[in-house]
């Protein structure tokens, strides 16, 4: 038996276990057999064992460079740095499917292992949905995209890894994004399970919230890492290009953002039940849409690494999911009515509703931009490209409105906000908003929208800080030192204040976005060795161009000497343009000198000859803060997720 046949046999075993756990769960409910239900649950646990071993077979094949396996041949070579073995595993369609299946089995295991007693009745349905989802991926692998497919004649060397993937960001960006999209099935299955039992009320909501937050944060970190990768390697000079692959990751994240907010309302006030069901169904279908676009959908993308001919299989699955959700919703709509209604426009519930409305609006604007070229080609036979200007001009103001609600919402009380409360809570933040806006309007020569955006950030930040200061001060009155009061405040209300820290991380990202969109200075120039270019406070001299020839690539490196206005040397920077003949692909790495105020960003876009090159130089203010937003986002999510020791099971 070879390693490839072992891996494949384990996939077949997984498929059988999935079928057993689906049938066992459903028949177990029908005949009320606890033993059968438990057995089906155990079968679902076994999927983890079989898939861990199957994935290990593929990793082992990569480590030993077993080129008898087609997938290993296509995504590695003898000269590939061993450090990229993990990346190579999901660098193509078949391996990424195996990775997704592994993620689903891990998340299913954890979901079922930690399931609370409130969801006991729904558990068999949850098992069958999770196993059904896993079954789809395993079946596709077995019949259409086998990662263990072998050659008759073993090649001596492989093609190598896609050069764009040979980047530190690739160790975490694709796996997190794929994991985020795949694990949306967890909250989806929990809610669906509760609907099937006819009891989608408030029981189990904490568990749904926890799993949703986890999925949402995985997807969010994946997106942010993707931005960082695009900023450093692709040399687009940007962190976000509204590329279809980026958009299909963003849309489910936006809907999950709406969901984790509106589930708070359901938990606290027993409201928005139907809306929450719609949101989670939408997030699940959009995640399947993402899989379809990523795996050979009809939209052209610059970085779809898992492209295949299987796009229409995933389209079929997405349509099936959508139809399934629609039928379930129509049949069960009457069972999921809310306990209360929004009593006042000036209430926290109403702010959450507005937040949801804006998030859904951004999602649909993005979806429309993505599918419009297809519709146009299909019905009008016209090729249309929807680019960044469309997204920026439509989504920009909605995002601003969303930020504004983020600043106002926490100042509103649940149920209703009295006039006195409203004035006392909003007086300082709104005053700061106006003061900052007027100051920026007078002292900044940028468009009015940039001043407005910064003012709204001031509003949100002041809202959070004022609440922290006010609440800590109240606790300090009882004799506790201020810093301990602050920590106590966060520990006692982790969900709320963890959420505020996440809001701060969103503000940090927004600061970077505003900096690069409204305050960027950019110059295109052809430069010879020894020549200089001046931009902002920088003097940039091209000091040398080197060319290196490797087995798998030709690398041209440009080195720049950076001085300030007073001719004081700041640093030297290098950027490269590398061509990979076997992939017929060039990869550009920008030279970046980053600090909290601004990034000096040089893209070596073209090497004309040995001493002359074309480059794009820009000064990107405040981008550094965008990357600081990542760890702050993780910190906030962790605080928010940290459990309370008060359960009984």
């Amino acid at each position, binding site marked *: 038996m070879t390693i490839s046949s072992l891996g494949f046999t*384990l996939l077949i075993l997984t498929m059988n276990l999935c079928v057993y756990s689906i049938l066992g769960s459903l028949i177990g409910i029908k005949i009320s057999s606890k033993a059968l239900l438990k057995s089906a649950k155990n079968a679902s646990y076994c999927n983890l064992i079989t898939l861990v071993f199957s994935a290990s077979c593929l990793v082992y094949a990569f480590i030993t460079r077993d080129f008898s396996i087609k997938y290993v041949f296509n995504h590695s070579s003898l000269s590939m740095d061993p450090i990229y073995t993990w990346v190579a595993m999901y660098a193509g369609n078949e391996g990424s499917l195996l990775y997704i299946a592994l993620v689903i089995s891990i998340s299913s295991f954890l979901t079922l292992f930690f399931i609370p007693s409130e969801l006991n009745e729904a558990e068999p349905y949850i098992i069958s949905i999770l196993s059904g989802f896993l079954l789809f991926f395993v079946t596709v692998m077995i019949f259409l995209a086998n990662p263990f497919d072998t050659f008759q004649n073993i090649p001596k060397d492989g093609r190598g890894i896609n050069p764009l993937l040979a980047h530190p960001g690739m160790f975490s960006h694709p796996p997190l994004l794929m994991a985020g999209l795949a694990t949306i099935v967890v909250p989806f299955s929990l809610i669906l399970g509760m609907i099937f039992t006819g009891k989608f009320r408030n029981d189990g909501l904490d568990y749904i919230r926890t799993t949703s937050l986890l999925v949402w944060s995985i997807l969010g970190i994946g997106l942010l890492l993707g931005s960082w990768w695009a900023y450093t390697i692709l040399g687009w000079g940007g962190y976000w290009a509204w590329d279809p692959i980026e958009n299909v990751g963003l849309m489910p994240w936006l809907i999950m953002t709406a969901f984790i907010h509106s589930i708070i309302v359901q938990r606290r006030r027993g409201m928005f039940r139907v809306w929450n069901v719609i949101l989670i169904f939408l997030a699940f279908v959009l995640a399947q849409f993402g899989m379809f676009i990523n795996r050979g959908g009809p939209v052209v993308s610059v970085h779809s690494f898992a492209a295949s001919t299987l796009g229409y299989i995933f389209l079929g699955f997405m349509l099936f999911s959508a139809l399934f959700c629609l039928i379930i919703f129509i049949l069960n709509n009457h069972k999921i009515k809310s306990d209360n209604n929004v009593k006042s426009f000036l209430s926290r519930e109403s702010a959450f509703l507005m937040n949801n409305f804006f998030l859904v609006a951004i999602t649909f604007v993005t979806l429309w931009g993505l599918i419009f070229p297809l519709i146009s080609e299909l019905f009008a036979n016209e090729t249309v490209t929807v680019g960044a200007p469309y997204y920026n001009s439509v989504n920009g103001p909605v995002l601003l409105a969303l930020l504004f609600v983020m600043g106002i919402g926490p100042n509103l009380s649940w149920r209703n906000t*009295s006039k006195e409360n409203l004035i006392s809570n909003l007086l300082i933040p709104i005053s700061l908003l106006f003061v900052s806006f007027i100051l920026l309007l007078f002292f900044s020569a940028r468009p009015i929208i940039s001043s407005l955006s910064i003012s709204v950030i001031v509003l949100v930040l002041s809202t959070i800080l004022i609440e922290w200061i006010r609440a800590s001060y109240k606790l300090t009155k009882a004799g506790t030192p201020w810093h301990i009061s602050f920590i106590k405040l966060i520990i006692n209300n982790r969900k709320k204040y963890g959420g505020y820290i996440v809001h701060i991380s969103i503000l940090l990202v927004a600061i970077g976005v505003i900096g690069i969109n409204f305050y960027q200075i950019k110059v295109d120039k052809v430069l010879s060795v020894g020549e200089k270019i001046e931009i902002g406070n920088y003097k940039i001299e091209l000091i040398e161009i080197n060319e290196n020839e490797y087995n798998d690539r030709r690398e041209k490196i440009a080195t720049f000497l950076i001085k300030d206005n007073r001719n004081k040397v700041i640093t030297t920077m290098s950027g490269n343009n590398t061509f990979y003949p076997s992939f017929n692909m060039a990869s550009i790495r920008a030279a970046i000198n980053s600090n909290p105020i601004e990034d000096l960003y040089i893209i070596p876009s073209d090497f004309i000859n040995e001493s002359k090159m074309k480059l794009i130089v820009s000064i990107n203010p405040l981008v550094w803060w965008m990357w600081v937003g990542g760890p702050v986002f993780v910190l906030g999510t962790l605080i928010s997720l940290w459990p309370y020791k008060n359960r009984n099971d």
Partner: protein
Amino acid sequence: MLYLLIILILLACIIYVVYPFIYQSEHIDQLLYEKNIKIRKKGLISELNNELASGILSNDLYNQLKDDVDEMIDSELKNLNKNIKIIDPIEKLIQLKKNEKNN
């Protein structure tokens, strides 16, 4: 070696899947559900208490929201009693004693 590995995995899976049919545990704490609803109520009330202590909520609003939580949880407990027949451990003990006497 690889044959041995696949046989071991297969055996482990079969034993684990068949095990519930051989050993059937009947121990289910039916009161757990109710307990957890009450714990959730406690959690929601403690969140309100924290908000009151830190000055985010006024007393009036605190009372209104507390009433809402009471109402919401009470209706859940009522629904629970309708759907699940909860066996009180004391009731169970009395039943057991009665059975013993009868025997």
